[in-house]
């Protein structure tokens, strides 16, 4: 493209060079770096909008069934491990902080900082997944995974259980809660894993000194994604874990 005689026609209107830094050229379809950056920011936010609607479908299903089966949902929710969930929330918030700090390091031209904070973000993200793995393991052991071996035993002292245990569909309703729990947290974890993959790529490039205060757009875009995944968890945590806590 660069050799085409048609390229230079998009020079600045006043005849000034568009970009003073020789080593930063916008992609061929853009006139300026500013236009390119604005486009990618808008594109990223539009992508996040699709993510909002994607998770939104799950939240809708959750809301509908929770309205239908409040007791079963509260009882099923109370078997989740609140301390681990809260720990994971803190871990994710922390990783959001380190992600923001990685971008800030790029803004102030501290390449070492980028590396350290990206590594920290990845470590925290991985911690989240490991904790999640332990939680999943507990659910398997307790037969709370939907499927043929699903068995939701209610404690006899449970006040709601006493009134609703006669309902033959009660187990099924609890099973729906756990279906949604696994799908929602599973898709969230998938997003985390994808995020970790992108962070690994960024780590590689920042190791080669690709990012500085002039150019850190990929970091910023990944940051948006990472923070969004955090936001999803901020809603998932109270909706899934804290529903029946007060009934104990």
């Amino acid at each position, binding site marked *: 493209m660069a050799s085409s005689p048609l390229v230079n026609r998009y020079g600045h209107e006043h005849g000034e060079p568009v970009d003073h830094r020789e080593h930063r050229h916008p992609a061929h379809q853009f006139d300026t770096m500013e236009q390119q950056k604005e486009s990618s920011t808008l594109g990223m936010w539009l992508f996040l*909008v699709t993510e*909002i609607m994607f998770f939104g479908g799950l939240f809708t299903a959750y809301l*509908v069934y929770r309205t239908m089966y409040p007791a079963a949902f509260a009882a099923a929710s109370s078997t989740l491990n609140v301390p681990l969930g809260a720990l994971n929330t803190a871990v994710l918030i922390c990783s959001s902080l380190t992600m923001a700090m990685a971008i800030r390091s790029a803004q102030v031209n501290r390449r070492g900082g980028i590396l350290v904070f990206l590594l920290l973000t990845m470590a925290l993200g991985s911690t989240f997944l490991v904790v999640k793995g332990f939680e999943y393991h507990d659910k398997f052991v307790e037969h709370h995974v939907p499927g043929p071996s699903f068995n939701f035993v209610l404690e006899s002292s449970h006040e709601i259980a006493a009134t609703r245990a006669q309902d033959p569909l009660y187990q099924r309703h609890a099973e729906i809660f756990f279906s949604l729990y696994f799908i929602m947290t599973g898709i969230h974890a998938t997003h985390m894993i994808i995020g970790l993959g992108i962070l690994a790529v960024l780590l590689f490039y920042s190791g080669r000194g690709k990012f500085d205060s002039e150019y850190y757009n990929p970091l910023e875009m990944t940051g948006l994604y990472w923070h969004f995944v955090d936001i999803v968890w901020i809603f998932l945590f109270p909706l899934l874990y804290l529903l029946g806590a007060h009934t104990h």
Partner: protein
Amino acid sequence: MSEHYVAPVSLYVKVFVALLIGTGLTVAASYFNFGVFNNFIAMTIAVIKASLVLFFFMDLRHSTRMTILTAAAGFFWLVLMLCMIMMDYWSRNAIVLPVPGK
């Protein structure tokens, strides 16, 4: 390229602490029964936390109007979908038309 706003570290740390406090509050609140307000309290705290992330970590407050509008449209449409679908479920047992013969 124009000069970019660089947030001070202290701001990020403040937001981080606020988010942690929010998490603590929502856990603490869940052990008390406020009746119908349980959800309201949990969701209010979650919305505040999400807004903090959006406006400070994701730097929405320094974004263009178009970006803010895009984000707002996403959340608005989500609420729209939730409300319109729940409209059906909340009105399932309501009788809006007289049933002949009753």
